[in-house]
C-alpha cells in the first residue's frame, strides 16, 4: 500500500524541525503571556502597599492649650497586614510648650517599656516600675532610663493633630525605630 509506505518512512527532517520550532515558539509565546498575570499575582505584596501604617488622629488642636500639663490621649493605630487590619490602642501625651509648639510623646518608658503616668502633684512623668522621672517636655531628670521620652512624628491637618505611632528600642541612649 502506498499510504503505508509513506507513513513507515519518517517525514523528512527539515519539515519536522520547522514544525517543532513553530510549536515551541507558539507554546513559549502563550506561556509567556499567561505568565504575566501569574507574576503580577505573586509580586502583589512587593509592588503594592499591603503593609502600611497610616497617620492616626490624636485630637483637635483646641484640646491642647494648657502649657502646664500634658494631655493623655489613647490613639487608635491601624496596621494593614495583607488581608488583616490590626487595631492597637496606645497612650500618648500631647504637650504644648511656651512658644505654642505641640509635641507628642510616646508614653512608653525608654527603660523597660512601662507606661509612664503624669504625676500632677510633682509636675513630672514618673515611671511606676523603676522611678524613672521626666520633665513636662519629656526630658530625662533622673532614674535608670537611658534617654528622654520618645517624640513621635506629628503633623497638623485642618486643625487636627495626627501622629505616626512608632515603637522604639529600649535601653539604648539613642532613639531607634523598631516598628
Amino acid at each position, binding site marked *: *500500500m502506498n*499510504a*503505508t509506505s509513506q*507513513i513507515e518512512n*519518517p*517525514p523528512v*527532517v527539515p*519539515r*519536522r524541525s520547522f*514544525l*517543532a520550532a513553530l*510549536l515551541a515558539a*507558539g*507554546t513559549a509565546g*502563550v506561556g509567556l503571556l*499567561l505568565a*504575566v*498575570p*501569574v507574576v*503580577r*499575582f*505573586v*509580586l*502583589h505584596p512587593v*509592588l*503594592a502597599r*499591603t503593609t502600611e501604617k497610616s497617620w492616626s488622629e490624636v485630637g483637635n488642636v483646641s484640646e491642647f492649650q494648657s502649657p502646664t500639663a500634658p494631655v493623655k490621649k489613647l490613639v487608635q493605630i491601624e496596621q*494593614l497586614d*495583607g*488581608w*488583616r*487590619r*490590626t*487595631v*492597637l*490602642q496606645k497612650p500618648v501625651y500631647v504637650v504644648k510648650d511656651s512658644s505654642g509648639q505641640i509635641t507628642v510623646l510616646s508614653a*512608653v*518608658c525608654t527603660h*523597660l*517599656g*512601662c*507606661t*509612664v*503616668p503624669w504625676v500632677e502633684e510633682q509636675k513630672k512623668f514618673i*515611671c*511606676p*516600675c*523603676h522611678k524613672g522621672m521626666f520633665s513636662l517636655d519629656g526630658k530625662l531628670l533622673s532614674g535608670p532610663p537611658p534617654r528622654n521620652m520618645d517624640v513621635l512624628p506629628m503633623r497638623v491637618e485642618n486643625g487636627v493633630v495626627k501622629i505616626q505611632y512608632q515603637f522604639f528600642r529600649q535601653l539604648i541612649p539613642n532613639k531607634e525605630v523598631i516598628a
Partner: protein
Amino acid sequence: MHKPPSRVDGNKLDGDKQSVAGRLVRWNEQRTGLNSLLRYALDEPIPGGAKLAYVFGSALLFLFISQVVTGVFLAMYYVPSADHAHTTVAYIAKEVSAGSFLRSIHAYGSSAIVIVLLLHLIQTFTYGSYKGRRELLWMAGCILMALMLGMAFTGYLLPWDQKAYFATTVGTNILSEVPLIGNALKSLLRGGTEMGTLTLSRFFVLHVFLIPGLIFLFVAQHIYLFRKAGAAGPATSDPENAGLPSERFYPKQLIMDMGFALLIIVVLGLFAWHSPTSLGPRADPSETAFLPRPEWYYIPVFQYLKYWTPSTAVIGILVIPGIIGLLLVGLPFFDRTLERRPWKRPISVGMFAAIFLALGFFGIQSHREDANNPGVATQIQKQKQQEEEFMKQPFQPESVVAGGAAAATASLDGSAAQGQKLFVDQSCNACHGDAGVGGGVGPKLIGVGKKYDAQKLESLMKSPSAAMTAGGMPAVDLKPDEMKALIAYVESL
C-alpha cells in the same frame, strides 16, 4: 590494566554529534533517556491518521495542569478556615493584582473540565473505544471522572460565601439518606453534625491534597494503559487490530491537540477577563431564606433529587445511581462484541443517549420551575443582586484587636475587672503583655494562678525574688483591696 570501554558507543541519535547542542542532547539522553521517551510519546501510531475527534483527552490533561497551576497560586493567599476563608478570597478577587483573573481561570476551568470530560466520554463511547482489551483503561477513566466531579464539589465550598455554604449543606445532606450509615457518613465528611470550619478544612484537604493525588495516579495509569492498548482508531475498524495505515502523533495530531488547548485557554481568558467569577456575601448560617443552587453541571442532579420523597429516597439516591454507575463502569464487560459502529449498537447507545436526554430534561425543568415560581424567582434575583452589590464594595480587611484583651474583659467579674484596669494602669502589661500573654521583657502570666496560690502571688509581688528583680520586676505597692483585685485578675489569666 584493562582498557576502558569506548565512550562513543552510546545510543544512536539524530543531530550533529560535533555541535554543542548535539553533544548536550546526547549527554542528557545517556543519563535520563528523556529523548527516547519524548520520541516514544511523539511517535505514537494513530490508526487511520490524526483526527479532531481525538483532541479531548490531551485537552483534559492540559486543563488539569492549568487547574493545578492556578490552584497552587491561589493557595498563596487563601486560608482554609471559616474565620478567614471569605476574607482571603475577597482579598484575592478585589485587591491582589490579577487575582480576579487567576481565580476566574480556576473557577471557569472547572466548568471547562466538565464540558471537555463529557465530550471525551461521548467521543470514546460513540467510537466504541472501550472495546478490545481496554476494560481497565475505561475504568480508570470512569474513576477520573468521579474524582473530577469530586474536585468540583469540594472546590465550590472553599470561598465560603452564601451560595457555597448552602449548596454544600444541601449536597452533604444527601448522604444522610443512605440507610444505616448515612448520618455517620455525613458527619465524617462534615467533621461534625453541622457545617462549620472543620467542614472547610476537610474539603480543603480533599480538594488540594487527596483528590489531586489520586488524579495524578489515575492519569498516569490511564495514559499508560492507553499506550499499552494503542489508539483505537475510527469506529469502523477492528478494536484489537485496526489494520489501517497509521500516522504518527507528531506532527498533525499534536498540532490539533495544541490548537484545541490554545482555543480553550483563549476562551477561558476571555471569560475571565470580561466577566470575572463573582463572590457573594460571607456565609451566614442563620439566614433562612437563602435558596441554594449548585453550579450548572450539578443542576440536573439537583433537580432529579427533588422527585424523591423520604420513603423512596433510597431508590433515588442509591439504587438508580448505583445501577447507572455499574452500567457505566462495567460497560466493556457488558458490551463485549468487537462491533464499534454506534448504529450497530442500539442498546448501549440508546441507554447512553437516554441518560443524557434525562439530564438535559432535568436541567431545563429546574430552570423552568425556578422561573415559574414567583417567590423563588424573586429570591434568586435578590441573591444575584446581593452578590453584585458585594462585588462592588471595596475590600474590607479583617479587623483584629491586638491581644484580644477586649474579648477577655467581658467574662471577668467585678474584682478581676478592676484588677485588669490596675494591670494596665500599673504598666504590668508593658512587660508581661496585654492580658498577660508575655512580652519581650517579662514572662507570660497565663496559668500562673495554677502555679501559685493567692498568698504566694501577693508575697512575690510585694517582695520579688532576686531572679525577678534581676529581670526588672519592681515591688508592687498597692492598697490591700487593690492588691486583691490585681491577684484576682492575674489568677483569671
